[in-house]
């Protein structure tokens, strides 16, 4: 049978809707596969082929022994709610064949749906009725449609009874629309609610594109989930505002007004914007006029901020940072600036980098950043440029928050990279030192992102600072975690490769990257995994023998001719030749495989003669040491491993 559930709510925050739908797509519908979609005011689940009832079944309940007599059997039957005649002796016991009737799907769903609906996990919930013990949901539930075929699945949540009446668009639709499953979507459409988020997305994209919008995918997604009936319109602004930096104009349009920007040519803004309404049209142009008015006020503000801010140069604002809190326990941004500057010097930053470090936080005292916080750094860079700072300085300030995401790019100049690195490291060191390290999912200071930025800059700019120079203790462990994450998730290396390389030594990140690249290249070759398995074996042998390498050389006179001597000679040759290129070195190591195999085949490590045994363990230990400079192969998961 066809099934339809519509949870009618007040407007749900757009960014939470996809998560809720993912959960609803796992709704238990007696085996039928749920399909889901939503608008800001309705979460909808539908399915076909929901069975109308579960099948009848029989259950056998073991009763008293036959020896207890018929009276006992009758008593048992009565207790089970059955007739004495249903009891039959089987193998010395009475058995009751209990027939359990299947239940109707309407009944089952009527029981299960309320808990399933209220069980949706949201980032933040509220209560609205029945005090704090009342039901919690993302926003108040105002109506519920629940149908199986043409039958209402009866239940109640927060005083709202399920039924077969939906509501249309707030202004354009009817507030009470009786529906059947078959005409649900068409009825909604007639009432100006487009259920399909995909259709709304396409409608916005095509209308906005026709009007000249530069489509921003994140904004498109937002608009898809804050509208039930999206319609794009184009508005204009005075081209005099184009004097303001494009970054400022775009931020105002994009973040504050949710408008798409329009470009006259790539990278050049045109004096227009595209707004997406939640209604069918703007025949009198009132919506256009209203939006233009708001934007004008916003741009005027920005203009006013720009002019006001220029009255005091960034260089004269460093002192003012004493009044801006960085973090209660870590003091003001002035103190942070001093620390970042010291760190930039320590990292060998040049004069331009030092000047940028000095200025990079001063835009926090500007009116522009107080209003448009997303533009911190960028505004500082633009002001520094306007105030005649050298290009490496203003660019470093402009980009010092980069990278802002895992995918984002790192600062484009060396100066910018040093300042960004120092800024993030200072935040991490500071927070870790006062006990503000992230715990579980809680990371109020976005330290994971900061650490990710540190890792990205160190690797991608191939900066020559070893990790141990930059961090110690818990922070070092935290950065190691981010390094693992980065190489696995962003760069696609296998987790055991990353572990193997880190186990062989934590150096500079560029070096770690080189070793990883070489390791991943050699890994698919024939000799590699068997050799890795042998390394694991060697490690176990050394461990079992409790062998402590004392730096002694292998004693040639104790070597047995054949595989043992061959292996020792080969190792000596390998050490003598040396090889610093990681790929070549790994190729040479992999080529040891036949000798190693033969050694294990023919030579008994655990020799009776203690001197010979120690010599053999020394040989293996030296071998492992030589092999492990790039990666600890015993970390490599091979086909012989469990799991």
């Amino acid at each position, binding site marked *: 049978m066809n099934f339809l559930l519509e949870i009618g709510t007040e407007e749900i925050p757009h960014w939470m809707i996809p998560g809720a739908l993912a959960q609803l797509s796992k709704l238990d519908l007696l085996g039928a596969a749920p399909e889901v979609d939503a608008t800001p005011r309705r979460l909808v689940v539908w399915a076909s082929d929901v069975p109308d009832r579960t099948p009848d079944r029989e259950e056998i309940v073991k009763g008293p022994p036959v020896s207890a007599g018929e009276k006992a059997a009758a008593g048992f039957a009565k207790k089970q709610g059955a007739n004495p005649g249903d009891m039959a002796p089987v193998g010395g016991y009475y058995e009751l064949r209990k027939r359990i009737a299947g239940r109707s799907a309407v009944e089952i769903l009527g029981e299960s749906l309320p808990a399933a609906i209220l069980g949706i996990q949201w980032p933040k919930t509220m209560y609205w009725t029945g005090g*704090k013990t009342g039901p919690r949901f993302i926003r108040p539930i105002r109506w519920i449609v629940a149908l199986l075929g043409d039958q209402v699945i009866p239940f109640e949540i927060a005083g709202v009874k399920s039924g077969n009446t939906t509501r249309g668009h707030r202004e354009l639709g009817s507030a009470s629309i009786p529906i059947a499953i078959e005409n649900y979507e068409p009825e909604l459409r007639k009432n100006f609610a487009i259920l399909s988020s995909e259709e709304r997305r396409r409608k916005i994209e095509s209308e906005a594109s026709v009007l000249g919008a530069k489509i921003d995918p994140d904004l498109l997604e937002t608009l898809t989930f804050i509208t039930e009936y999206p319609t794009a319109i184009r508005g204009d602004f005075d081209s005099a505002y184009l004097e303001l930096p494009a970054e400022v104009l775009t931020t105002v349009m994009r973040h504050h007004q949710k408008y798409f920007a329009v470009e006259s040519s790539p990278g050049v803004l045109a004096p227009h914007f595209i707004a997406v309404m939640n209604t069918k049209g703007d025949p009198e142009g*009132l919506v256009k006029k209203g939006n233009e008015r708001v934007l004008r006020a916003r741009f005027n503000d920005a203009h006013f901020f720009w002019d006001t801010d220029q009255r005091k140069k960034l260089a004269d604002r460093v002192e003012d940072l004493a009044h801006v809190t960085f973090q209660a326990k870590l003091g*003001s941004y002035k103190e942070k600036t001093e620390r970042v500057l010291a760190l930039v010097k320590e990292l060998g930053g040049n004069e331009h980098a030092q000047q940028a470090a000095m200025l990079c936080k001063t835009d926090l005292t500007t009116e522009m950043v107080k209003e448009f916080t997303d533009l911190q750094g960028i505004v500082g860079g633009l002001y520094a440029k306007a105030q005649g700072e050298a290009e490496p300085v203003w660019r470093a300030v402009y980009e010092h928050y980069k990278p802002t995401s895992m995918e984002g790019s790192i600062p484009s100049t060396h100066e910018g990279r040093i300042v960004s690195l120092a800024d993030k490291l200072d935040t991490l060191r500071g927070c870790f030192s006062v006990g503000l390290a992230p715990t579980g999912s809680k990371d109020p200071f976005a330290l994971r992102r900061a650490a990710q930025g540190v890792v990205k800059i160190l690797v991608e700019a191939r900066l020559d600072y070893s990790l141990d120079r930059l961090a110690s203790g818990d922070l070092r462990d935290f950065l190691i975690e981010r390094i693992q994450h980065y190489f696995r998730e962003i760069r696609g290396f296998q987790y055991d490769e990353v572990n193997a390389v880190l186990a062989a030594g934590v150096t500079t990140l560029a070096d770690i990257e080189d070793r990883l690249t070489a390791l991943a290249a050699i890994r698919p070759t024939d000799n590699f995994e068997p050799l890795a398995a042998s390394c694991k074996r060697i490690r176990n042998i050394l461990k079992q023998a409790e062998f402590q390498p004392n730096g002694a050389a292998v004693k040639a006179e104790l070597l047995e001719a054949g595989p043992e001597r061959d292996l020792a000679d080969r190792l000596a040759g390998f050490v003598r030749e040396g090889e610093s290129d990681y790929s070549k070195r790994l190729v040479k190591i992999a080529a040891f495989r036949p000798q190693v195999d033969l050694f294990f085949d023919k030579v008994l490590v655990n020799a009776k003669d203690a001197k010979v045994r120690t010599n053999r363990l020394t040989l293996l230990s030296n071998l492992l040491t030589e092999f492990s400079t790039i990666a600890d192969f015993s970390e490599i998961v091979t086909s012989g491993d469990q799991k």
Partner: protein
Amino acid sequence: MDYFQDTVFKLKRYWADRGAIIQEPYDVEVGAGTMCPETYLRVLGPKPYRVAYVQPSRRPADGRYGENPNRLYKHQQLQVILKPSPDDVLDQYLGSLEAIGIDLLKHDIKFEEDNWEAPTLGAWGIGWQVMLDGMEITQFTYFQQCGGMDLDLVPAEITYGLERIVAFLQGVESVYDIQWAPGFKYSDVRLADEVEFSKYNFELANVDRLWRLLGEHEAECKELLKAKAPLPAYDQVLKCSHLFNLLDARGAISVTERVGVIKRVRDLAVGTARVWMEQQEAARQEAA
């Protein structure tokens, strides 16, 4: 065209028709209509309540000497509290927009997530900013906690930004061009206020004296709380809160002091809410 005062009359009439008491503004300085006892204290406890009032709200740091067309040191909020919130509260709210002449079929209305929080009051709620043709005209909040306490009946709080709405209705670019009443513009009524108070807030206020006053009002509040007099105590909380805002506008609160001062005000506010609740509870038991 409706004058500023006509729009106020219409909104008051609209909510009066829906059972709200029409209160007058509270006579102690507040930063928002929420801080008036008619909201802060009335939302606590199990008694239903409905009230609407205009509240001039002072935010010293927002002053712009009357030079910015949209920013004011003191703006007027029309505050509505519906406790408990009726099921059709959003429809009622939209009806109020129709009542002041906004034809919803010709405009674009969106409800965008905006959760409200006031740390100094131990209060927060869930809700939206209501956008009319891209302009925020109302803050709508379902209160969840106040004075650090969960609420028995969840109230809806509707806060209209009157200057913005009327500037929109009258189609003027600057709030100062709003026609307040026949022959009087907003600037005639309020510009001098903005200029002089901006000067006071940013330049003239005597920082040492403000600090002393903060201490005095705090002491008064504590004594009143001991005497179980929550309503007079709450006036002292509001005085402290306003003094904090003034000191902040003067740039007189250092980084280290800031958190501490916020906590001092919050402790007073939460303490007052507790005493008020105890008093209500006692009265209820006596009645029962």
